[in-house]
């Protein structure tokens, strides 16, 4: 479980996160949603330590991440896997080398063992016989899957996904969403997905936090978000005509 307790963050005079409190449970897909510029990515970056919080605490299974020094944080970071918006694969390494990278840095595995683990992870994301390709030779969807394979290579307890569907066609987006959900349930990870894609919300959102103007505005399940009367959430969820139609249908039932 990851707990966020009273987190505040400023950039200069801008108060971008205002007293954020949240709990993200293990074995569930936790979503942080919100409009562009609402502070959801900053929240995630504070949780993983890419931004330092001004006040508040981040607890990883009770371990206070915010008070740890660089070396102690390193131990927790070995338990974190992250899928980046642009996949963030290392350009100069092949697909296999990308997945093997964290293993080569932090385990005592032999090269054969690392290769075996990399192949297992690549198979898990339905990528076979692509080991020797460079990231630039892979499609956007493939790059996301390689990113997931790299993220799960160290068997992490915590998985972060930053806009996993950005730049993907709807069909591939669903494949990636389902993959994240399956892996979360299978390995009982604490998964946090940052998204503004309503399809993802409906598809995989077990627990949803809505961030608005740097504040935690709402919290609930995917069923609850469709029925809430909160104006800001409705403006976000039912922004498209398609979703407005769904809202109409829900209203009739």
């Amino acid at each position, binding site marked *: 479980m990851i707990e966020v307790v009273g987190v505040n963050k400023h950039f200069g005079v801008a108060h971008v996160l205002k007293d954020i409190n949240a709990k993200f449970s293990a074995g569930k897909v936790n979503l942080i949603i919100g409009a562009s510029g609402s502070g959801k990515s900053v929240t995630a970056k504070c949780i993983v330590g890419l931004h330092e919080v001004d006040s508040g605490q981040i607890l990883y299974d009770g371990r206070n991440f915010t008070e740890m020094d660089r070396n102690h944080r390193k131990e927790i970071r070995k338990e974190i896997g992250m899928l980046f918006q642009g996949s963030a694969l290392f350009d100069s390494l092949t697909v296999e080398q990308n997945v093997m990278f964290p293993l080569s840095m*932090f385990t005592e595995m032999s090269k054969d063992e690392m290769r075996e683990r990399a192949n297992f992870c690549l198979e898990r994301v339905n990528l076979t016989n692509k080991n020797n390709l460079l990231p630039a030779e892979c499609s956007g969807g493939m790059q996301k899957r390689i990113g997931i394979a790299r993220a799960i290579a160290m068997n992490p307890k915590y998985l972060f996904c930053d806009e996993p569907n950005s730049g993907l066609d709807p069909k591939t987006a669903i494949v990636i969403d389902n993959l994240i959900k399956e892996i979360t349930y299978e390995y009982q990870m604490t998964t946090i997905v940052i998204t503004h894609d309503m399809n993802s919300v409906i598809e995989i959102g077990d627990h949803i936090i809505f961030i608005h103007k740097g504040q935690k505005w709402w919290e609930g399940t995917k069923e609850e978000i469709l029925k809430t009367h909160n104006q800001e959430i409705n403006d976000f969820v039912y922004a498209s005509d398609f979703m407005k139609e769904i809202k109409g249908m829900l209203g009739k039932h």
Partner: protein
Amino acid sequence: MKVITNIGKYFIMLRYVFSRPERFKIYKNRVFNEIEIIGLSSIPLVALLSGFMGAVMTLQTAANMSSPLLPIETIGYITRQTTILEFSPTVISLILAGKIGSNIASEVGTMRVTEQIDALEIMGVNSLGYLVLPKILAGIVTFPFVIIISMATSLIGGLLAGVQSGLVTQEDYIKGLRYWFMPGDINYALIKAVVFAFLITSIASFYGYYTKGGALDVGKSSTQAVVFSSIAILVANFILTNLILL
């Protein structure tokens, strides 16, 4: 004010760069890769530039020696001194600041804007140590060899140009090269090469690592890396000359 802030940030960066590596074997492999990128790939350019510059230095010296009292060996002597003391260590380093500095800054800057550095950090890897230390070590190891190659090709270029133009004989040129030779000059040149290698690789890495924004900003970082590493070379050259030669 920004310059002072950047100098402070630069020294803080160096502290992390030289902290203990996670896995020595991986760093060793990366150093060898960087030696190829920073050192070996620069040799053709350095040899070409040095050969022609040595040739021009010889011709210029010969053309400007109007006094019959000056012995003809002076041509070889002046070409040697100019090459060893300034041209090879300083001018070639300035040229390499452009080639290597922009390469490093754009590579590291692109890794920054495409979140590859964030990915390293989240994995628990010391990104500065992993990315920058191998570049600095590769630069320090290879630059002296590159500068020696530059010296050799410059002096050979001078010999060929002098002899081919008929301005100096091979014997007189070589006599001039040997005339009043002080091995300490080579040490001075190699010390400068090591210092300049450190400045180029570390300053270029600094501007790449702290890139913010997108592709346009990577270009800006690359330009800043070349400008500031060139300035640093000129300042260091002045200081080292005062310390070593005087």
